[in-house]
């Protein structure tokens, strides 16, 4: 049997894993840059090609243009090595990412209500499961609310995470009203004096107006009990997503006032460059990155680590 538990490899260190994941995926990018700059001077054609290389890393046209523009201003007259280019690009990316790298800390309210939203399959349940494990191990009392009453076995999935983290999971039968469940869960979280209540919701595409309104209703219902809640509304983005991430962020933000982002599945071949363009265009806090399916595979977003990994620079 082939075992697949990335949490076993925590001795390897998550930095290494993030980097090895990212470096695999950024190899093409690096090779491309290397090829460009051993062959050519940094002329307009080269910059154009560099711009496209950044685009292929999902950075998006606008960010790619900005980054290459910066590069052109700074270094246009020098003969640059590939390594110098990478460092220069990484520095600019750190500059963009640094202001948004803000970990999610559930303090200031009790219970601190976290709402996870996002499109289908982005990794909401897994992300909440990981957060529950982490915060429980830090000594907080956590409660989970399985408000994805639509997808088959979504409740069961969260319950298994609840067992792993040893926290209670509030649920109702398939097809129940998600808002009512959230309301009840908040009552219970208050009654049991929980530190954190995390609400998992059903995945929905942002262009499904009715489903988006359902989500807005859930928030309104929570506010009837605590008008400061939810204290964090986290949009979970799939790391393989392309430029549609911008529309997702925009619409979820308009509907439920998203307060931060978590980007998942960055252990794959996706380059996660959309993170950079999102930071530039939206500026929402980036709380964490998901790099695997184990309990420990969720880490605070670190601008420097991310930028350097993306550019294949070893620390």
């Amino acid at each position: 049997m082939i075992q697949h538990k990335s949490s076993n490899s925590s001795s390897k260190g998550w930095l290494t894993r993030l980097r090895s994941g990212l470096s695999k995926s950024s190899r093409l990018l690096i090779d491309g840059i290397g090829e460009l700059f051993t062959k050519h001077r940094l002329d307009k054609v080269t910059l154009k090609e560099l711009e496209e290389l950044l685009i292929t890393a999902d950075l998006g046209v606008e960010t790619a243009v900005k980054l290459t523009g910066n590069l052109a201003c700074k270094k246009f007259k020098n003969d640059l090595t590939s390594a110098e280019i990478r460092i220069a690009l990484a520095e600019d990316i750190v500059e963009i990412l640094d202001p948004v790298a803000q970990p999610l800390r559930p303090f200031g309210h009790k219970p601190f209500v976290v709402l996870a939203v996002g499109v289908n399959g982005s990794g909401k349940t897994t992300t909440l499961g990981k957060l529950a494990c982490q915060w429980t191990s830090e000594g907080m009392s956590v409660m989970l609310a399985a408000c994805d009453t639509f997808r088959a076995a979504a409740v069961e999935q969260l319950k298994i995470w609840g067992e792993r983290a040893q926290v209670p999971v509030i649920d109702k039968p398939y097809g129940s009203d998600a808002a009512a469940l959230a309301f009840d869960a908040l009552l219970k979280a208050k009654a049991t004096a929980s530190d954190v209540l995390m609400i998992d919701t059903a995945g929905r595409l942002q262009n499904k107006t009715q489903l988006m309104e359902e989500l807005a209703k859930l928030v309104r219902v929570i506010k009837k009990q605590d008008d400061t809640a939810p204290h964090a509304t986290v949009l979970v983005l799939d790391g393989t997503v392309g430029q549609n991430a911008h529309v997702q962020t925009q619409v979820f933000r308009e509907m439920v006032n998203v307060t931060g982002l978590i980007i998942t599945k960055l252990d794959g071949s996706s380059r996660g460059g959309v993170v950079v363009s999102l930071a530039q265009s939206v500026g929402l806090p980036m709380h964490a990155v998901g790099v695997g399916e184990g309990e420990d595979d969720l880490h605070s977003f670190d601008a420097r680590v991310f930028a350097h990994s993306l550019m294949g620079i070893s620390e």
Partner: protein
Amino acid sequence: MVNVFNGKLLLGDDMFGRLSERIGSVFNRLKQRRKLNESDVLSVISEVRVALLDADVSLPVVNLLLERVRKRAIGREVISAVSSGQMMIKIIYDELVAVLGSDKQSINLDYAAPVSIMMVGLQGSGKTTTAAKLAKRFVNQDHKKVIMASLDTTRPAAREQLRTLGEQIGVDTLPIIHEETSIATAKRAINTAKLQGYEVLILDTAGRTSINDLLMTEAKLVKDLVNPHEVLLVADALTGQDAVNTAANFNERVGVTGVILTRVDGDSRGGAFLSMRNVTGKPIKGIGVGEKVNDLEDFHPERIASRILGMGDIVSLVEKASQTIEAKEAENISDRMLKGAFTLEDMAYQFRQLRNLGGLGSVIGFLPGMSKLQKQLTSANIDDKQLKRQEAIISSMTRTERINPQIINVSRKRRIAQGSGTDVGDINRLLKTYTEMAKIMKKFGKLGSKGVINALIDDNNPLLNKDAMLHMPSAIDSDYSRLHNNRK
């Protein structure tokens, strides 16, 4: 007919405007010429390049596509009935279709039973839901005896998810044995299928990143063991540039026979279609268009190409509408429409249907010339709440008033306004819209269904010559001369 609404539409954004809009602005700058010259073609190509990249088409695929467009476009004569821009659309459209694959292929079940189908893909791409959708289709359309088995021992409750879906659609699933390895489950699945006379076996597997050596090897092991007739790569239509890596890795490491794209009902711009199809060279064998078990459709390259170009997925809309609207009711309405007898009741019904289709937001994506239409709607402030409000007004009328709106006098208007929580101005606006709609409906009656679609297209959109557009999906070059002749 759109100016009665207030409120806000959650769509459209200049910075990330549709591909069609971007291409449109380039084409509008093109001068009318008899032949497409190199500088025109190259200027279009460099803009389209950025637009395609921004639409998440992978770079190598963009290059390939544009090279083909360049070769075909330079020096081409522009038929006098069409503009240079339309000529370029036609060329790009043809190449898009060519890259997407003009061969429509569905899943062939005509093999010795059990025919096995293996689903592979990244985490969260929609494998399990798609497995159930396929199973339902095989049972209902192909009348096969189907069993599903989940080999996903990684994700919590993944196997329970497949079992629950199986219960919902009345398809058997392999009993779950905890602690069993995926290879052992695969063996048990084949044996069960053989011994119990199942005709189709669908194997759902765990999501895996395509660079995870261990899991990719495992997938290959399962494949070698099962020797499936189909290995379907399930991929998210929202995928960005990584589509090309995912497709290449799965194809090389495991070997796939086809691709199914999911979340096509989202508002992604379809770049993943081009990338996946091109990199694997394998046909797209289905598209997921919703969360329900019926929401699986055949892939039509022409439609996706049209959608990418902003010509609208007219056929899809009509199909979807025909599924949603109860056939009988629709027949009644169209009968009345053809006679020009369009009542307020019909209008209320249409509002309801519009909402049932998934709200204005999801319908607009299907419509041709939508980027401009969308802006109009945004500026006219339409949203679904407004639709509901219009319905409320109509609901506050008596049946007689709905059938004979001309009897609605001031006192009746006051009563209706009170009943619906609106004011007389709202009633007037609704009645004005109704009059306009009734007029249009009369015209529809004369034009037939194509006329309906024409009426939806923005007259001011220079990209969309109505006649050319209606013929575009099936157009071959000779159609242009035919169109031209028709005009003479």
